Structures are given as structure tokens and as C-alpha cells.
């Protein structure tokens, strides 16, 4: 009986002990080791997957893709797991077309130093991706998404592609290997375009298959629509490149602007670069000179001088100004015209680009009023365009002006401007005196196409409609009878102003009379302008160097192609070189009766002359000998007088 009882108790004690041990173990596992066990379980079951959303796309105004990101595969290696480094390097070298010995050395070095991650090739295209997989596959016929070799793997990245290559490269900019914008819109709109990093938790079964995925939703990056029109941009770039090459110039820039909306239709720089291969280009070429570089505008600035004087009622277009013998001494410096034009109307003085006429106009205006209008036209401050590193321009206040500053500034010296600022100033006149803030960003849209925001430019009246109209007429005269005859268009009226300025040479410490910046800023049609085009050619080194010679033809080529594309109706200007009448006497009084010699022939004739004379005569190449003496450009007369005191830009700016 007792034995039975003891047995019974023994069993009970054993059971209690057993349960106690199990309980204790459970307590140990679930309380003291709970966190560690949980993390172990999660690491076996869950994996964290990080991916970067694709960067936003940049479109032109017509919806064509200018920049887009695509998924790309990058090959990496874990050197510790690669034992046959030579063999792997040999295979990879063949497919990736890289030095296999260098790669083998890299893998060996990584293995010796215990490194577990080495990039082999980044952002490979689909074909190369498949070729690498095929090179290591057991069955070459079978397509695989992995490299069948221990220690080699793929990582998904994104690659920025610019399908149009160099088209608008200075506007779009580029992003680096880490998908961060480095220039242009890519840089200025980094916050809009950048893709957020998305973390996702993936749960896997015992076979490694993902059966659940959780993660916080992130807003995808937005797309940007620019005001650039790819077709106009292309034509502008082509014309600019041709113009720079023809002038044997150092560089050039061109802007095509819609004066009514302030939209930049094209912005080109030459030399240019392909953002797909930005690293292979001189970084100096990355700079968007049209908004980042200051230059002396030269006679282009006279538009502001006359515009301000007209607006304040100091001059009348048909009133007379005495330009005397073409020389005027102000502040100890003698400013000169190429020839004495005597007493002429302001319109003619403007058309002939008379320095004396412009200075007398500025003197009538006075320092304060002149400065006020220079500022009103947008000089000396950023335009506010959505591009990085825009230059303010160089403009000092009247309190810091010297004795000849007003005179110098009225003819475009002692002031630094950007091409965009000149384009905006002329757009103000083209838009009946209302300045519209230029912009290159048209719209921001969500990835599904829904508009997020549209740019609304700021407008400001600078001069009255009447003044703008009168100034347009004066600018028209420049093209018809002044220094910009090569800006005349077939079938469209055009207006504008040439400018040629000496460049400041830092080595000389003063302006260099051998180096010029030639420009032409104009618009068309003259009466109801639809486009403003600003052309600047830097250091033309050929025989031709004046704005009317090297920049105006570029304007013509662009305008001639852009206006029909914008469906602008011809305003009936008779083409210069296309006689409508076989016999001029048949022509009605309002039609063109005289026929001018073709421009090409004149240039050819100029080439035969000695170099100095060639450059001087080229401006007036179409005119007879008698006219040459009367109407030569004042800019070149100054160039003929090297003994005269040089205008030092250092002092001025």
C-alpha cells in the first residue's frame, strides 16, 4: 500500500518537476530572451527593402521628354565569396569591355582587406545586364535575372537619360551618379524632382518567396513642364552654332522669348555639351552663359536711354538732336561717332547708333531718372527665372558714379548685363511697355498628369504704351536704315538694336580693343511682336565683328524659321532680296523699288580688303563710297582711334 503511495507521489513530483522545468524554460524564453528571439525570427522571415523612387521627368511645352529616369542594374561583388577572381574578372571584362586584370586586382585586394562590397559596373543597360547573366549561366539559352555565381549580384538603381542629347542642355542641366541635380533645372528644381527613398518590409516564406509587403506610402516626385519648345530650341541652337562658327567666335548665346507671356521658348549656348556624358566635357561649358555671365551691352543699351527720355518727355522721336562733329567730351573722355551727322532726328541718331546722340539724350534725362529707368527695365537685379546662379548684373548707384559714368552707361559701358536682362528689356517694349517676368517653368504636374501648380509671372508697367510704340518705330528704323539691315526678314517686319562692345581684359587691367562682344536684340513682327530674340556673340575673330554683321544674321535665321512655326501671319514686309517687280518703274510708290546687292557678295568684297578696312567697311558694305563717309558706325570710329583714352571697364564696373 505504502509502496503504491510512494510510487504515486513520485510520479506526481516528477510531473510537477517536469512542468516546472518547462515553465521555467518558457519564462526564460518568453521573458528574458523574448526580444532576441523575436528579432531572430523577424530576420529570418522579414527583410527590409529600400528603393528610391524614380526622379521626376522634365518635359518641354509640347510634352516631349527632355529628361527621364529609368531603372538600371548595377553589378556588385562580395570579394570574400569570390575564390576564382581571375576567371570572374576575365568573363566580366569580356562582357563589360573593361580591363580584366585591373578588375581581378580589385577583387583580390577586396578579398585580402575583408571587404564585402565592391561596385563592378553601375547603371548598365538592359542588353549588358542580360549579357552578364548569360556569361555566368549554366544554360546560356535560359534567361535569368541573377548572376549565377557566388559573390556577384545586381542592385537596382536609376539612370538619368537625356534623349535629345545636347538639346537645351544648359537649361535642363544634369544630375550626378547619386541622382542629385548639379546644374540647370535639375539643380534648381531638386526638391520637386527628387525621388524619396521608400522602405518596405517584405515577409518571406521558408522558400524565400515574398508573401507580404508593408511600408509607408510616399508621394511620388512630380514632373516639370518647361516653356521651352524643342523645335524652336533646336533651330535656335543650329542657327547659333552656325553663327558662332561663321564669326570664328569664342562662344555665343541666344534667347527666344515670348514678350506677352514671358515664356522662354529657347535658350541656347555654344559651345554646348551632352548631359548624358557631362563628365567628359570641360566644366566651363556647363555654365549657362545666357543667365550667368555679365557683359557690356554696348549700343543695345541705347534703347533704354532713348526709352527713358521718351517716357519722361525729354525728347520727341522726330525732334532734332545736334550731334555736331561727332565728338563729345564728357568727364575728360572724348566720346566719338564715326562721322559727323550733324543735326538729325533722334530716330535717325538712334538708327545710326550715334554715341553723341545717346549721350546728349542721357544728359537731358539726368542721372537719377536714367538710373531709375535702367532699374525699371530690369538691369542690376535678377530677373527671377527658375535657373540656378543667375547673375544680378553690374550696376552701381548714382552716388558712386564718376564724371563720365552717365555718358558711358548711356552707350552701354560701365554696366554689366546678362543676355536675359537685355531680352527682357526689349520684351518690355515689344509688350507695349509692360515688363513680364521671364520664366522657363510652365507647370508642375503629379506623376499621373494632374496639374499641381502653374507659374504666374509678375507684370510691371515700365513705360507707357505710347512710348513703347514710338520706341518700336525707332527700333524698326535701325533694321531698315540703320546698323541692322541683316536682320531684315522675308515676309515679316523686324526691329531691334545692334551692340558691339570691347571686352574687359583682366590681364591688361583695362578693355582690350581686340576683343569684342557683339550682340543683337530684336523682335518680330515689328508692330505686334510675337518673339524677342537676343543674340550675343563673344569674341568674333573673323573679319566681321559688329553686332549687325555677326549677331543680326543669327537673329534672322532664327526668326525666319520660328515665326511660321508659331503660325504668325506675315505682316507683308517685302523681302529685300526678292524683287516683286521686274522693272522698278512698274512698282507702286509704296513698294520696294531699289534693289540692294546681296549680302553675300558684299561680304566677299569685304574679304578682299585689308583686315582693318575690311572690318570697318563691312558695316557699310552695301553703301556706295559717298555714303560710307556719311553713315559709318560710331563704334568703329572709336576703334580706329587707339590713341584715345580707353574706357576702362575696371573703373566702370
Amino acid at each position, binding site marked *: 500500500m505504502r509502496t503504491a503511495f510512494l510510487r504515486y507521489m513520485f510520479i506526481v513530483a516528477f510531473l510537477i518537476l517536469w512542468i516546472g522545468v518547462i515553465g521555467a524554460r518558457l519564462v526564460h524564453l518568453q521573458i528574458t530572451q523574448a526580444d532576441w528571439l523575436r528579432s531572430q525570427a523577424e530576420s529570418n522571415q522579414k527583410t527590409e527593402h529600400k528603393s528610391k523612387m*524614380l526622379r521626376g521627368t522634365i518635359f518641354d511645352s509640347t510634352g*516631349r*521628354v527632355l529628361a*527621364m529616369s*529609368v*531603372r538600371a542594374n548595377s553589378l556588385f561583388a562580395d570579394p570574400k565569396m569570390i575564390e576564382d577572381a581571375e576567371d570572374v574578372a576575365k568573363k566580366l571584362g569580356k562582357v563589360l569591355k573593361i580591363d580584366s586584370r585591373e578588375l581581378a586586382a580589385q577583387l583580390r585586394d577586396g578579398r585580402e582587406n575583408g571587404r564585402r562590397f565592391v561596385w563592378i559596373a553601375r547603371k548598365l543597360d*538592359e542588353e549588358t545586364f542580360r549579357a552578364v547573366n548569360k556569361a555566368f549561366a549554366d544554360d546560356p539559352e535560359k534567361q535569368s535575372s541573377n548572376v549565377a555565381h557566388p559573390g556577384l549580384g545586381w542592385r537596382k538603381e536609376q539612370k538619368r537619360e537625356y*534623349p*535629345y*542629347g*545636347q538639346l537645351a542642355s544648359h537649361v535642363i542641366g544634369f544630375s550626378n551618379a547619386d541622382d542629385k541635380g548639379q546644374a540647370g533645372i535639375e539643380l534648381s528644381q531638386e526638391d520637386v524632382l527628387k525621388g524619396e527613398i521608400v522602405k518596405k518590409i*517584405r*515577409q518571406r516564406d521558408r522558400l524565400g*518567396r*515574398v*508573401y*507580404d*509587403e508593408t511600408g509607408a506610402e510616399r508621394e511620388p516626385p512630380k514632373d516639370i513642364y518647361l516653356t521651352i519648345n*524643342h*523645335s524652336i530650341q*533646336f*533651330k535656335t541652337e*543650329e542657327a547659333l552654332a*552656325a553663327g558662332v562658327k561663321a564669326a570664328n567666335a569664342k562662344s555665343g548665346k541666344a534667347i527666344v522669348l515670348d514678350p506677352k507671356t514671358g515664356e522662354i521658348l529657347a535658350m541656347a549656348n555654344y559651345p554646348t555639351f551632352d548631359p548624358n556624358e557631362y563628365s567628359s566635357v570641360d566644366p566651363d561649358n556647363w555654365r549657362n552663359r545666357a543667365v550667368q555671365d555679365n557683359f557690356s551691352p554696348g549700343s543695345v543699351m541705347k534703347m533704354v536711354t532713348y526709352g527713358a527720355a521718351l517716357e519722361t518727355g525729354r525728347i520727341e522721336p522726330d525732334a532734332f538732336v545736334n550731334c555736331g562733329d561727332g565728338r563729345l567730351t564728357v568727364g575728360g573722355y572724348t566720346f566719338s561717332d564715326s562721322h559727323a551727322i550733324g543735326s538729325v532726328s533722334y530716330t535717325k541718331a538712334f538708327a545710326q547708333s550715334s554715341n553723341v546722340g545717346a549721350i546728349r539724350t542721357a544728359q537731358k534725362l539726368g542721372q537719377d531718372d536714367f538710373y531709375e529707368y535702367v532699374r525699371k527695365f530690369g538691369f542690376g537685379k535678377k530677373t527671377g527665372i527658375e535657373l540656378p546662379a543667375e547673375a544680378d548684373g553690374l550696376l552701381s548707384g548714382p552716388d558712386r558714379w564718376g564724371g563720365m559714368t552717365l555718358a558711358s552707361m548711356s552707350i552701354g559701358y560701365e554696366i554689366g548685363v546678362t543676355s536675359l536682362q537685355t531680352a527682357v528689356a526689349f520684351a518690355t517694349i515689344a509688350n507695349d511697355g509692360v515688363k513680364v517676368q521671364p520664366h522657363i517653368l510652365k507647370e508642375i504636374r503629379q506623376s499621373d498628369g494632374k496639374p499641381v501648380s502653374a507659374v504666374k509671372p509678375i507684370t510691371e508697367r515700365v513705360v507707357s504704351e505710347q512710348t513703347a*510704340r514710338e520706341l*518700336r*518705330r525707332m527700333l*524698326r*528704323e535701325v533694321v*531698315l*536704315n540703320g546698323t541692322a539691315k541683316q536682320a531684315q526678314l*522675308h*515676309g515679316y*517686319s523686324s526691329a531691334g538694336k545692334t551692340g558691339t562692345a570691347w571686352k574687359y581684359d583682366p590681364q591688361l587691367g583695362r578693355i582690350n580693343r581686340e576683343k569684342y562682344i557683339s550682340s543683337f536684340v530684336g523682335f518680330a513682327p*515689328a*508692330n505686334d511682336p510675337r518673339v524677342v530674340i537676343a543674340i550675343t556673340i563673344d569674341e568674333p575673330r573673323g573679319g566681321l565683328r559688329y553686332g549687325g554683321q555677326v549677331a543680326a544674321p543669327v537673329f*534672322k*535665321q532664327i526668326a*525666319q*524659321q520660328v515665326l*511660321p512655326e508659331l503660325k504668325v501671319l*506675315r*505682316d*507683308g*514686309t*517685302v*523681302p529685300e532680296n*526678292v524683287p*516683286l517687280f521686274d522693272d*522698278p*518703274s*512698274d*512698282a*507702286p*510708290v*509704296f*513698294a520696294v*523699288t*531699289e534693289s540692294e546687292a546681296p549680302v*553675300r557678295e558684299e561680304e566677299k568684297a569685304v574679304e578682299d580688303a585689308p583686315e582693318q578696312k575690311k572690318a570697318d567697311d563691312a558695316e557699310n558694305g552695301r553703301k556706295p563710297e559717298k555714303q560710307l563717309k556719311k553713315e559709318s558706325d560710331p563704334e568703329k570710329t572709336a576703334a580706329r582711334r587707339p590713341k584715345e583714352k580707353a574706357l576702362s571697364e575696371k573703373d566702370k564696373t
Partner: protein
Amino acid sequence: MRKKKFTKPSVPRVRRQKEPLPWKFCLATILCAAFVAAGFFFAAQQHFYSMDYGIENSRLRSQIEDLKSRNRRLKLKKEVALSPYEIKQAAMKLGLRGTTVHNLQPLGELQESMLAAVDEHDAEEAAPVRTVIRQDEKPKTPAAAVVAEKPRVVKTVKTAPSKASEPSDAKEKESAKSTRSRIIDEAARR
């Protein structure tokens, strides 16, 4: 002494009368058990289904990503093919020339030649326009009147201001060139 025999009074064994299990109870138990078991099976099935769906979902999701990625690459290729520089290169290979000021046929010339063609084939169509010209311009010189008959003049006349023949400046009278600019000025004022 007679030994008294003590006998335990026999207690009649009371047997509890077992009642047979009620069939309803059995049935309910069986049903509940079956329900619970079925629930377990159902839950297990659902779990495995959800696993399968999850796996399938994940596969489809990655497939969508791949297709989207391929779609983008194709879009990109399309854009590359549409690139003006690519088109230019292709055109050059075909022997076409680039457009410059010098080889660009002006719209004016094109329209003039078209108008000339119209004149040859259908002069009547151009006639109403000529009528309008005469009314507007009233050309004073016979030569101008003769020219106005030509449909090619239409383009010039249509756009020239009506006050074109009124001289505004003595100097401008001297040259036709100045006259032209004055006409345009007049047009600008209007």
C-alpha cells in the same frame, strides 16, 4: 463461549442508474466539434490561400514594376528616335541639306510662286482681291495701276497702309527706300 459471529450487514449496493446519453447532446457535441475542426481547417486553408495570394501578388507587383520600367525604356527609345539631332543625322544620310538662311526658301517666294500658278490656272480667283486693292489704294500712277492688275502684287498691296502715298518728310520723298520705311511707320502708328 459461543463466539458471536459478527457479520457485516450487507448493504445493498446502490447502483446509480445510468441514464443513456441524450442523443441531442451527442449531436450537439459532434456538431460543435465538427464546426471547430472545420473552422480550424478553414482558417488553415485561408492562411495558405492568403500565402499563395500574397506570393502571387508580390510576383505580379514585381512584374508591373518590370513592365513599367520597360515602358519607360521604350518611351525613352522613342524620344531618342524623335530627337531633332537624330532626325537631322538621318536626313543628312539621305542626302538632305541643313536649313540655313541661304538655302531656306522664304515663305514669300513660295507664296509668290503659288500666286503666279494661281494666276496661270485660275485668274478669276485672284480677281476679287485685285478689286479690293484698287479701292483701297487708288494707285495714282498708271504704272502702279498696271502692276496692281498682277496678282503677285496682292501681297504687297494688302499689307501696305492706305496713306502710303502721302509724303511726311521731304527727305523721304527723295528715295523709295525711305518711303518704304515711312509706310511701315505709318502702319505702326495705326
